[in-house]
């Protein structure tokens, strides 16, 4: 399956086409195709995951450069030996039961490295030198896509631990979202289209995740951009929705320019290759010039800021809530916004070298992430729309991931991505379930006191919130703890503090959200009821995962880091720090403090209530948050509407007072000149010529029209006459 990984994205693409053409005629209006394709992809991704785990870790990472090699030798000796031994034995047992595909995969590292794996050629050649401890070899398979000059562009898949984990996550969330949607979107006008877009969305993410080269990555990236536009604007009859879709599209597009620029720079400087492994190697070995590398990384960071909704381009994400709720779950948990984080993790060699991530202190990636964590978390406090709370929470958590990658905690960032997908998917689907019952998203007007009415939704939502708040031993606890630990161990003390404050705020706003939704008096209309099984089923599955997913990298298990840490991280010498009790206690303390503060404020009615009415400072702080730091206004009024804004007025003033004076003087002077020119040059000379030409043409035309009799034979005679003249001239003069 690892070698045939192209099948996984191909399935949803196929279902997209089939749903589009035949969806309407099917009894389920197309959802059965989507369910089957994504379900199939999920099964295959599980197979791929199992096979990846069974691969022997026998691949010695070649050193990209002297210094990196030294680092790599020291990195992570603790986990690979045991992993190798254990997995070897496991592979033997499985060998009999598994199909021949398994066999092919097992043989792939040794036998078929040469024939189709053009991209691995360089790596294989350099493999002679032995360094570091072995890891699993990425299973690559490429075919020639097209060639231009000497440059061969390949299309293919490269499956390594990160890709396998992400493929699994994407398929899982997507499948559950599909199941959820069959009920939630029931009776929708464009039900069939909805499922087609959902399939294509999933396919885009899968293509991007499995891509072996940056061109293909770009392809998947843009596919998602398109699909997010279609899905956010699914109910485009309302102007707000189509505006939100446009906003999402254009805002991410602003960043996408960075992606194009960055990838182009890397293509040129890394030796005319789009191959991701080759680019990472080149970056780590120092083959790319310092300036070019920094420029490329900065451009790519712009793309990440746009796609992963980092400050200051995060504004599209809360507006993207205009789409159907399952789509929000898919966008926020498994696809789209995660793409930016994935990009950093995938091209980590580039970022690592360009921004000296190993050095500590402050770097742009960590800074963007850290600022986003705090700013978005603060915004989550003032939202009354439950989906917007979750949206800002996502922005904040994405900030955590980017920050983790920025502080060199690669595994932690990826792990947080994984666990976050579980509990954020759960929370969004939970919000969808609530809104399904009360027909509103407003926590203050339409919800409250839903606990007895919706027991399953309440329990699963609570589990998701606790996981997000980082309560031991739920998923968020482990991944957040790793990020904090990475920040402190790699010399990024500032971001440790940011992370701790973020943890506190996360816990507090989730407590607020749970209180407003499920406790107190019911403030809506109608009778809330528990949702049907198609909705609660996915909730229960995700709740289970939100509890257990974190254990995958708990101390003593640490399977996640063993699976994912691949060639790039080992070569770069990224260190993975395992569990520390002190940090875990500190992180939990902040989480519980946040929950406690929320509890005291809402349940016990303690603390400064109505502060905004009494204190001007608090009110202005609230205003800032309520208006989202005026960033939307900044973009729409200052930048987009800049012509109408103050810039335009300043320009107008300058125009009236300064430029007009000059213009008037010039005008009077030029008028005199113009009068003279008009009378003499224009009227007499120019017009004479123009009129003369016209008259000449007219006269000549009427004279020549005599020749045009319309009779074919006369024309033929002219023709022959001409030929005779030319022939005569040829004979006489040549």
């Amino acid at each position, binding site marked *: 399956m690892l070698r045939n990984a192209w099948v996984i994205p191909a399935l949803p693409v196929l279902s997209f086409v089939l749903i589009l053409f035949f969806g309407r005629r099917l009894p389920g209006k197309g959802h059965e195709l989507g369910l089957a394709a994504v379900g199939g992809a999920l099964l295959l991704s599980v197979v791929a995951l199992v096979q990846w785990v069974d691969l022997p870790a026998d691949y010695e990472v070649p050193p990209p450069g002297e210094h990196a090699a030294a680092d790599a030798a020291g990195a992570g000796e603790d986990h690979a030996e045991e992993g190798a031994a254990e997995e070897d034995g496991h592979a033997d047992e499985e060998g009999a039961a598994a199909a021949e595909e398994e066999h092919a995969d097992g043989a792939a590292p040794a036998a078929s490295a040469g024939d189709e794996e053009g991209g691995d050629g360089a790596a294989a050649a350099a493999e002679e030198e032995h360094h570091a401890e072995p890891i699993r070899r990425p299973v690559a398979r490429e075919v020639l896509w097209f060639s231009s000059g000497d440059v061969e562009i390949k299309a293919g898949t490269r499956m390594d631990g990160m890709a396998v984990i992400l493929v699994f996550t994407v398929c899982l969330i997507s499948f559950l979202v599909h199941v959820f949607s069959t009920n939630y979107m029931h009776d929708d006008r464009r039900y069939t289209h909805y499922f087609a877009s959902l399939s294509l969305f999933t396919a885009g993410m899968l293509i991007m995740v499995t891509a072996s080269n940056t061109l293909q990555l770009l392809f998947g990236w843009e596919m998602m951009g398109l699909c997010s536009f279609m899905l956010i604007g699914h109910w485009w009859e309302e102007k707000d929705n189509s505006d939100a879709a446009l906003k999402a599209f254009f805002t991410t597009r602003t960043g996408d320019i960075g992606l194009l620029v960055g990838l182009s720079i890397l293509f040129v400087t890394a030796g005319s290759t789009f191959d991701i492994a080759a680019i990472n190697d080149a970056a780590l070995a120092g083959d790319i010039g310092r300036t070019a590398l920094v420029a490329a990384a900065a451009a790519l960071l712009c793309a990440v800021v746009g796609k992963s909704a980092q400050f200051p381009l995060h504004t599209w994400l809360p507006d993207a809530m205009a789409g159907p709720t399952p789509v929000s779950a898919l966008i926020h948990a498994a696809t789209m916004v995660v793409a930016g984080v994935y990009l950093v993790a995938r091209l980590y060699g580039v970022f690592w070298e360009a921004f000296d991530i190993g050095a500590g202190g402050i770097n742009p990636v960590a800074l963007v992430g850290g600022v986003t964590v705090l700013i978005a978390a603060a915004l989550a406090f003032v939202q009354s729309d439950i989906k917007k709370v979750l949206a800002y929470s996502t922005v904040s958590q994405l900030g955590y991931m980017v920050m983790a990658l920025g502080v060199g905690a690669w595994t932690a960032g990826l792990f947080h991505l994984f666990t976050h997908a579980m509990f954020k998917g759960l929370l969004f689907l939970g919000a969808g379930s609530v809104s399904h019952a009360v027909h509103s998203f407003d926590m203050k007007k339409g919800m409250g006191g839903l606990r007895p009415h919706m027991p399953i939704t309440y329990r699963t939502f609570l589990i998701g919130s606790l996981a997000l708040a980082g309560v031991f031993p739920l998923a968020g606890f482990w991944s957040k703890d790793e990020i904090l630990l990475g920040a402190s161990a790699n010399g990024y003390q500032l971001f440790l503090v940011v992370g701790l404050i973020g943890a506190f705020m996360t816990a507090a706003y989730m407590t607020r959200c749970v209180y407003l939704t499920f406790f107190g008096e019911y403030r809506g209309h109608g009778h809330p009821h528990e949702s049907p099984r198609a909705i609660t089923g996915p909730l229960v599955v995700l709740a289970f995962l939100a509890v257990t997913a974190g254990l995958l990298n708990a101390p003593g298990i640490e399977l996640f880091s063993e699976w994912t840490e691949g060639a790039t991280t080992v070569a770069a010498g990224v260190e993975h720090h395992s569990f520390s009790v002190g940090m875990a206690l500190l992180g939990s303390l902040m989480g519980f403090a946040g929950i406690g503060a929320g509890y005291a404020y809402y349940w016990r009615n303690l603390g400064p209530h109505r502060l905004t009415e009494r204190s001007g400072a608090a009110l202005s702080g609230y205003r800032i948050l309520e208006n989202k730091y005026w960033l939307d206004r900044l973009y729409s009024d200052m930048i987009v509407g800049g012509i109408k804004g103050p810039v335009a007025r300043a320009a107008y003033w300058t125009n009236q007072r300064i430029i007009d004076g000059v213009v008037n003087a010039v005008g009077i002077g030029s008028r005199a000149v113009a009068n003279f020119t008009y009378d003499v040059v224009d009227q007499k000379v120019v017009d004479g010529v123009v009129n003369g030409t016209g008259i000449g043409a007219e006269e000549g035309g009427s004279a*020549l*029209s005599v*020749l*045009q*009799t*319309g*009779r*074919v*034979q006369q024309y*033929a*005679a002219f023709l*022959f006459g001409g030929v005779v003249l030319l022939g005569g001239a040829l004979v006489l003069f040549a």
Partner: protein
Amino acid sequence: MYLNQFLFLAAFLFCVGVYGVLARKNGVLVLMSVELILNAVNVNLVAFGAFHDTVVGQVFALFVIAIAAAEVGVGLAIVLLIYRNKHSIDLTEVDLMKG
């Protein structure tokens, strides 16, 4: 082998063809005259080919024959349409393009 006799034949055919094209009023005969001109060229091609002991002339003549067939097909179709519209194929009456 004397080249002259062929060239004289071709020149004569060509002149007959030109006369036909310019002087005849019947559209079909004009087309036939065009064929004469083309065949005069063919005779020249084959003759020069034989004279220089090469097959190129004949090959080229074959191409000319093929194209001539296509041309006369189109030409006859036009004549047919003209006849349907005007019930005459007198080319002097066809002067819609008169300027």
